[in-house]
Structures are given as structure tokens and as C-alpha cells.
């Protein structure tokens, strides 16, 4: 397990290194004349050159990368051009808000999708399975801004159950916060439901057909125990692994959902940075999101290895 963990950590390091080089290349090299972009098309050529010089843009590329990454590691993530504040504290503050939203969404998603997948997988082809599969297909096909709009129309404006703009009252109770975040969180749940449901369902199907399940039944175990001890444990394994990959969709969904519901998280910050062409802020947010996403993937892999005795034992040596 230790060797596996170390190997995965090494891979994480490589991933983050390549990702940071990529972010650097896209944000620092692709745009071309940064001084011209900042100062606009009517600025004096000499002013542009002076700014480029002061930003260190005339240095060799490798040097500039190390300069940038050294700053990043020391907590200097640059200055946002549109908001005029340091990037790191802003990104972290917004990120914690997104985390609250994501946590609420995942807390609703997991029981819903796994429960539905287990129920559908127990009787494949039955009425419940058919209904859930069609619902899952429909939900999986709708971009989050479409489901978000539908949620706003039905639950926000029609029934007036939840506020249509995500709000977090500063002195509110936990329930008030949850109430305020309900619509965007539901939107994320609908975005991720289809895939997770499908994975759980197919995991259930293969576990129910497996030899160990037949053996458990033949030795006379009650059906409840067969399900709990043998089927569920194996059926949920693939679900754990895809959960890590689904976090990428969750982050992408955050960009759209937070913009739609005007929620001040990292997603809407990324969107604002993109609309305002605020490159330092964009680079910082992307870096943070990518790092967290990679860490979450690592965590999912480690949990999978812990849960699966075959992998665990193979890794023990």
C-alpha cells in the first residue's frame, strides 16, 4: 500500500508539473504581446515595451516559467487585473464557498444516485429500471444551464420554494444556508446523477450475476445478507472510481451553475476572469481547480485500493 501510495503521489507530481507548464504556456505565451493587451491598442509602442520589460516578458521562456512557478509555490499568485487584489486569497475565499455548494450537492447526489442504481439493478428490465433509465438518459443529455433554467421556472418562480439567486445569509442558520443553495445544488445533482446511476446499476448487474453471489445464495444466506455482504460491496467499487472522474464534471458544472445563479464561488470567478480577459486571475483559478481536482482523483484511487482486497493485497508486497 505504501509503495502504491508513493507511486500515485509521484504520478500526481508529474501531472501537476505538466499541467502547470500547460497553464503557463497558454496564459503567458499564446496571448503574444501581453503589454499590448493590458494597455490596449492605442498605447504608445514605447510604453508597451517598458511594461513588457518590467513584467520580465523579455527573459527566456524556461526562466520565466521557473520564476512564475517559484512565486506560485511561495504563495505569490500575482495580481488580478480586473479586481486589483492578490489572486491567491481571493481564489481561496471563493473556493471555500464553492466547496460548500459542492458538498451539499454531493450529499444529496450519493444517496439518490446509488439508491436508484441499486433499486434499478436488482430488477433489470422491470418498470422501475425502465423509468429510471429513461430519466437518467434525459438528465444526462441536458446541459446544466438548461436544467438550471427549468429548476428556476418550476421550483423558483412557479412554486416559489427556493430563492432563484443563490444567497448565503451571513448570520443565517445551517438550514437557511441550505435553503439558499438548494437550486444550484439540485442543478449539480441532476448533472451528475445519470452517470453515477448508470455505473451503480451496471455494477449491481455484474455483481448479481457473479459466482460468489450464487454461492452465497446456495449456501442458504438470507437475501438481505447476500445483498449487503456480497453484492453491494462489489457493486459499489466502480462507483467509487468514477466519482473521482465525475469531480471534473462537477467543477465544470460549477462554472455554469454559479454564473446562472450568481453565486460568488470559484466557478463564477473563473467565468468573470475569462470575460474580463483577466489572465493572472484566470491562470490562478485554473491552477487551484486543477490541483484540487487531481488530489480528489488521487483520493478516489486510494479509497478504491483500500476497499478492494484484491488490489490491496496485490499492493501489499
Amino acid at each position, binding site marked *: 500500500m505504501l509503495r502504491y501510495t508513493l507511486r500515485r503521489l509521484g504520478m500526481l507530481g508529474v501531472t501537476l508539473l505538466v*499541467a502547470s507548464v*500547460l497553464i503557463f504556456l497558454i496564459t503567458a505565451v499564446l496571448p503574444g504581446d501581453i503589454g499590448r493587451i493590458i494597455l490596449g491598442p492605442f498605447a504608445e509602442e514605447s510604453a508597451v515595451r517598458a511594461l513588457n520589460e518590467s513584467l520580465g516578458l523579455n527573459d527566456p521562456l524556461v526562466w520565466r516559467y521557473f520564476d512564475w512557478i517559484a512565486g506560485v509555490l511561495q504563495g505569490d499568485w500575482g495580481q488580478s487585473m480586473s479586481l486589483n487584489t492578490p489572486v491567491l486569497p481571493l481564489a481561496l475565499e471563493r473556493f471555500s464557498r464553492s466547496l460548500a455548494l459542492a458538498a451539499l450537492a454531493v450529499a444529496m447526489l450519493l444517496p439518490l444516485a446509488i439508491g436508484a442504481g441499486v433499486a434499478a439493478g436488482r430488477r433489470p428490465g422491470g418498470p422501475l429500471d425502465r423509468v429510471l433509465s429513461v430519466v437518467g438518459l*434525459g438528465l444526462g443529455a441536458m446541459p446544466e444551464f*438548461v436544467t438550471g*433554467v427549468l429548476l428556476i421556472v418550476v421550483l423558483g418562480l412557479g412554486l416559489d420554494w427556493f430563492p432563484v439567486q443563490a444567497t448565503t445569509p451571513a448570520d443565517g442558520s445551517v438550514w437557511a444556508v441550505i435553503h439558499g443553495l438548494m437550486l444550484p445544488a439540485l442543478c449539480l445533482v441532476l448533472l451528475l446523477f445519470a452517470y453515477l446511476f448508470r455505473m451503480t446499476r451496471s455494477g449491481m448487474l455484474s455483481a448479481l450475476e457473479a459466482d460468489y453471489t450464487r454461492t452465497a445464495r446456495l449456501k442458504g444466506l438470507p437475501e438481505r445478507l447476500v445483498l449487503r455482504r456480497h453484492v453491494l460491496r462489489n457493486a459499489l467499487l466502480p462507483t467509487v472510481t468514477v466519482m473521482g472522474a465525475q469531480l471534473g*464534471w462537477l*467543477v*465544470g458544472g460549477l462554472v455554469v451553475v454559479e454564473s446562472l445563479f450568481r453565486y460568488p464561488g470559484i466557478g463564477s470567478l473563473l*467565468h468573470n*476572469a475569462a470575460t474580463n480577459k483577466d489572465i493572472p486571475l484566470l491562470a490562478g483559478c485554473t491552477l487551484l481547480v486543477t490541483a484540487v481536482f487531481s488530489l480528489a482523483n488521487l483520493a478516489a484511487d486510494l479509497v478504491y485500493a483500500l476497499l478492494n482486497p484484491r488490489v490491496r493485497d496485490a499492493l501489499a508486497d
Partner: protein
Amino acid sequence: MRSLTRSLTVSPGLTIGLLMVMVWVVTAAFAPWVAPHEPTAMGVGPQTAAPSWGYWFGTDQYGRDILSRVIYGGRYVLAIAPASTLLGLILGTLIGLLAAYGRGWLDEVIMRLLDAIMAFPIVVLALLALTVLGSSTLNVILVIGLVFAPLIARTARSAALTEVRKEYVEAARLRGEGHWYVMVMEVAPNIRGPLMVEATIRLGYAVFTSATLGFLGLGVQPPAPDWGVMVSSSRSLLTTAPWAVLAPALAIAAVVIGFSLIADGLRDREQQ
């Protein structure tokens, strides 16, 4: 042809999916004849009129006919999605073949690089690239294609891994064929089944992604009747004229569902 007709009758999902997509392809292709009005013409009807016989899907805040805009909007989606998927397919297949065929350290390096690229959430990577490159239809195609390439490369690699060990590959090499010739002319045709399924899945996601980018204001630019743009620009009308948002929103959902039905049908046929 006979196998096609048989699979259409065997798999109703495939048929329904093809029909759903074909409706949009045909109306988009013949938009000037099908659409009752110009898509960007303002004031062809009253402002925010509810759906009626004159304006089937109603009108928006500028008095534009929403039905015509939705029909013309299909042109953007149905040009961007296949073009970007094709780009991703070509690029991804070449990378995947190279990794599977090269094996050893080359395989390792390529896969680690792809892992790193896939560490970015797709929308975030597209956002980053489009901000820097500027938003144009061509850039949207390029960015979606590039973002999809690693995913397709993975499928291509795992399908090709078993193929490259087969004897026909060695035979071709012994005949004196070059590496690229063997990869593209010998191995690639043998993995086209899984690649077709993967490409169809990606088509649906490409529709999804291009609509999302349009919604975020980084894809096709207004006043073009792109569906994502239409949802975003009519957002404020939700209370007064919900049809202006619902029509393009449901159009997106219909096309994505169509593509995913086709993908499911193809996968079932592949597994038989």
C-alpha cells in the same frame, strides 16, 4: 445495407436517435426554405409574443421569431459538433496508435501527458484557451477538438493494444512497410468499431460543450442564433416569456439525447 436495415429494426433506440438527429440536420440544411422568417431580423412580430399560429415558438424581446432562430441555430451546433469531433478523432487516433504501437517508454510518456491534460476539467480548459485565443466559431471547433483528443486517444490505445500484437502487423513490417503505414493503413481499420462508438459519444458531448461555451459567452457570439447564446440572452425573460428560453434549451436536449441513443445502439451492435 442489409445489416443496416436489420440493426435499425433490432434496436429501436438507434432508429429513434437517428430520426431525432436527422430532423435537425434536414431543417438546418434547408433553413432558408423551412424557417418562416429571417433569424436575426428584429421586429418581425410583436415583442415577447406567446407561441401562436403565426409564431409557433413565440417571439423574443426584439420581436425576433424564435422558431426561425432555433432552426438556423441548428446550423451552428451541427457544424461545430461534427467538425470538432472529427478533429479530435483524427488527432486522438493518431496519438493512441502511436502509444500502443510504440509501447515502452513512448507509451508511458504519452499516457502521462494525456493524464495531465485530462486533469483539467474540460470546461475550464476550454475557457482558458478561448479567452486567450479569442472567441470565434473556428476557435471553438479547434478547442473542443483538442480537448476531446486525449479521451479518444485512450480508447484508440486500449483498442489497438491487442491489435498491434497480431501477426498481420508483423507481416506488414516484414513486407517492409513503414511504421506510419502499418499504424494508419493496417491497425486503424481494425479498431474502427470502438472508435465509431467513442466518436458518437463525443458528438453528444460536443453539442453539450459548444452550447455551454455559447451560454458562457465564449463560443459563437450574439446576435447569431446559437442555442446556448439564445438561452443566455433570454435568461432575463424567464418570468415574462419562458418560451424564449425553453425552445433553444429543449432543442439542445433533443440533439444530445438523439446522439446518445445512437451511441447506445452502436455500442450494443458492437458487443454482439
